[in-house]
């Protein structure tokens, strides 16, 4: 369970997250939608401690993320994240990209890590690209590789930071399909996304962020289908 309580986050003088509280239950899929600058991506970076927070608390399975005593490297093994700019390691093959962390962080043997990586890559449809370098792949393929790389750590949680925003429109579908597959497998997921229809399909709950706060949260059919707040309705209309 991810418990976010009254989190404030600033970059210099600019406060981007202004007291967000949100709980994500085990097995739940929560989508965060909202305009750019609403603090949704920043919050995601705070969940696995890639960004420090100024106030409030974030707990993952009871572990205080922003406590100095917390071993963040340990914690991050259980929280996978997929970035907007996929961030493939360009100097490693697809297989090596996925094998690296299981070997070096989890201490698995080469054979084990390789078997695991092949399994994950096959799962996302890249079984025939093992020896390819990421530079030779399309954006969609690189993003699916990034998903496999995160999944190879067998995380309990997966965070997606606008995973399809940097992709050509015709490549969005393949990545969304991979994410949908993951949601159906029961993975606990937090998605920051601009794919409203997708959010409605896969989410258990949808949160609309505005000005660094949760403006509206609820079942997808309610928040997206019949929003209570006029700002939510206005946002949804603008992205249609």
């Amino acid at each position, binding site marked *: 369970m991810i418990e976010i309580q009254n989190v404030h986050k600033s970059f210099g003088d600019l406060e981007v997250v202004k007291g967000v509280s949100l709980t994500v239950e085990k097995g739940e899929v929560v989508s965060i939608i909202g305009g750019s600058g609403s603090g949704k991506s920043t919050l995601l970076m705070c969940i*696995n401690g*890639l960004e420090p927070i100024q106030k409030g608390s974030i707990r993952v399975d009871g572990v205080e993320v922003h406590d100095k005593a917390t071993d963040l*490297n*340990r914690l*991050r*093994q259980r*929280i*996978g*994240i997929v*970035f907007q*700019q996929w*961030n493939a*390691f*360009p*100097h490693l093959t697809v297989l090596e990209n996925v094998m*690296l*962390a299981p070997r*070096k*962080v*989890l201490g698995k043997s080469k054979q084990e890590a390789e078997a695991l990586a092949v399994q994950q890559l096959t799962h996302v449809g890249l079984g025939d690209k093992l020896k390819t*370098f*990421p*530079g030779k792949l399309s954006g969609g393929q690189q993003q699916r590789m*990034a998903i496999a*790389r*995160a999944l190879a*750590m067998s995380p309990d949680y997966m965070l997606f930071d606008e995973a399809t925003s940097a992709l050509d429109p015709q490549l969005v579908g393949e990545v969304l399909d991979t994410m949908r597959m993951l949601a159906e497998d029961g993975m606990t997921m937090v998605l920051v996304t601009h794919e409203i229809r997708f959010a409605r399909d896969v989410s258990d709950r949808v949160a609309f962020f505005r000005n660094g706060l949760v403006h509206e949260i609820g079942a997808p059919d309610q928040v997206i289908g019949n929003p209570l707040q006029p700002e939510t309705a206005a946002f949804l209309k603008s992205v249609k």
Partner: protein
Amino acid sequence: MFDYTFQWRSALRALPDMLQGALVTFETAALSMIFGVLIALALTLMREGTQPVLRGFANGWVSIARNTPSLFQIYILYFGLGSLGLHVSSWIALLAGITFNNAGYLAENFRGGLKAVPTTQMRAARSLGMSAFQAYRMIIIPQLLRVVFYPLTNQMVWAVLMTSLGVIVGLNNDLTGVTQDYNVKTFRTFEYFALAAGLYYLIAKAIVGLARLMAWRLFRY
């Protein structure tokens, strides 16, 4: 009137000794590069870090190494330390001097190279649970080495040429030392130094060629 008779034959007789010297020259340069790269990496990390003492130390090193003549750097290591009672051999003084110089120049190259590796790479590595050290070793530095590979090759060539400064601290078994020995014995300055220059040229060219080959093997992406 031009009345000098070239004596190439006597110079060529010295070739085996000079090749022996060339080997010492190459080994010294190679060692200075190995140490230089390692120190430069350390200096780069110190300059990126937040520790003011380490940052000051690293900045000072880079600044002195790049802004003083390399001849002085070797001279001071040999005679300067000698006058303080610290006696080092000519070869050690030369190796230390060139290493000092290499580390300074390379650290500056590495800093530029580091800027060329996106910060998101670090982020992605850390998000997989890697420690900062692991992320540098397995993700950042391999990419950095590609960016700085050609400057690195240049520095290696420069290191080979700098070894010729060993002669000022009395080194007599490297290529310049051997050449100088023959020169003072025969006064056939032009012939011996022309031959030595040819050998330096070949070493430098071989390094560049080898580096091309290595780059082709190493950087598969």
